[in-house]
């Protein structure tokens, strides 16, 4: 076999990396994902990776392809001379990773926005219920109206 390349990438997120690999035309079932690094076949130096494409995917004549998790991101382990899973493919993975990461950031931001909004709604509802109870105990009648997101509670002194 030929020499191999180890390319450091800024890919930090496993979910996005898997999504990016799939985006290059592979099925999810083609991608082995392990919590602990597993040995890659075809290399002489005992290379290991957590995300692996086996020979069944890369081809019998070629090495496995792997992505090894490191503190600074996933590192790609692949053969430079592979006609499909070489440097050009890795560039495609990186482009797809960037897109997946952007989508994930948007999802997280939206989820956080919704969480905060729900928290605020619950607070308003708790205040509304408490004010109704307190106002009633203090002899007020409460007229409630809503304008957009704002609840308006008008407290009118009961005269009966």
């Amino acid at each position, binding site marked *: 076999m030929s020499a191999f390349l180890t390319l450091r990438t800024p890919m930090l997120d496993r979910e996005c990396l898997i999504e990016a690999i799939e985006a290059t035309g592979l099925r999810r079932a083609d991608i082995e994902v392990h919590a602990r690094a597993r040995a890659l076949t075809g290399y002489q130096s005992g290379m290991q990776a957590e995300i692996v494409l086996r020979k069944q995917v890369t081809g019998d004549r070629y090495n496995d392809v792997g992505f090894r998790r490191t503190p600074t991101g996933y590192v790609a382990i692949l053969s430079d001379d592979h006609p499909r899973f070489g440097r050009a493919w890795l560039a495609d993975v990186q482009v797809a990773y960037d897109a997946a990461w952007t989508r994930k950031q948007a999802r997280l931001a939206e989820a956080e926005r919704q969480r905060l909004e729900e928290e605020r709604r619950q607070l308003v509802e708790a205040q509304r219920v*408490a*004010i109704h109870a*307190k106002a009633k105990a203090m002899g*007020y009648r409460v007229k409630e109206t809503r304008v957009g*997101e704002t609840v308006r509670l008008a407290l009118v002194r009961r005269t009966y």
Partner: protein
Amino acid sequence: MALNLARTLSRSAANGPGERFVVWVQGCPLACPGCWNADTWSFGRRHVVQEDALVEEILATDGIEGVTFSGGEPFMQARALARVAARVRAAGLSVFVFTGYAREELTGRHAELLAHTDVLVSGRYREELRVAGLPWRGSTNQQVDFLTNRYGPEAMGGGAEVEILLGPQGATVTGFPVEIGQLLPC
């Protein structure tokens, strides 16, 4: 003509008769102890609004029967408010003014705003004379004057004494609240 405002509320039922657009002006020299709106005492620039813009905003608000000027001390900006009052009254709205001055103190330059006022509530807020449930007044020494025929004493009944708005910006209380802590849970 420019006005220095503390805030506005486009719709309130606790600041005079019916649904009203409320304008709290910025700046008051009276500094009544116990005032609810001590943040409006300073004469520093806060929200400077042109008369035209304020009138447009008021007239664009559906379903109100009038405008209320509060503060701060409305008569410290009497001329500009008089111009706003004249224009909104011409459009059929009523004008209600809360002032900390006693009626007899309102002379000279104040007359222009008085001339466009339907209801005037006047007098210093005196904490020791605070009584809950007084329509439109914070303390018993304050006086309600109906300066035109538009409203009479019957208008003082049945309105909201306190109003609480719960929204994205938090909780706001307006009107004549009892101890706010008694009403708001936090």
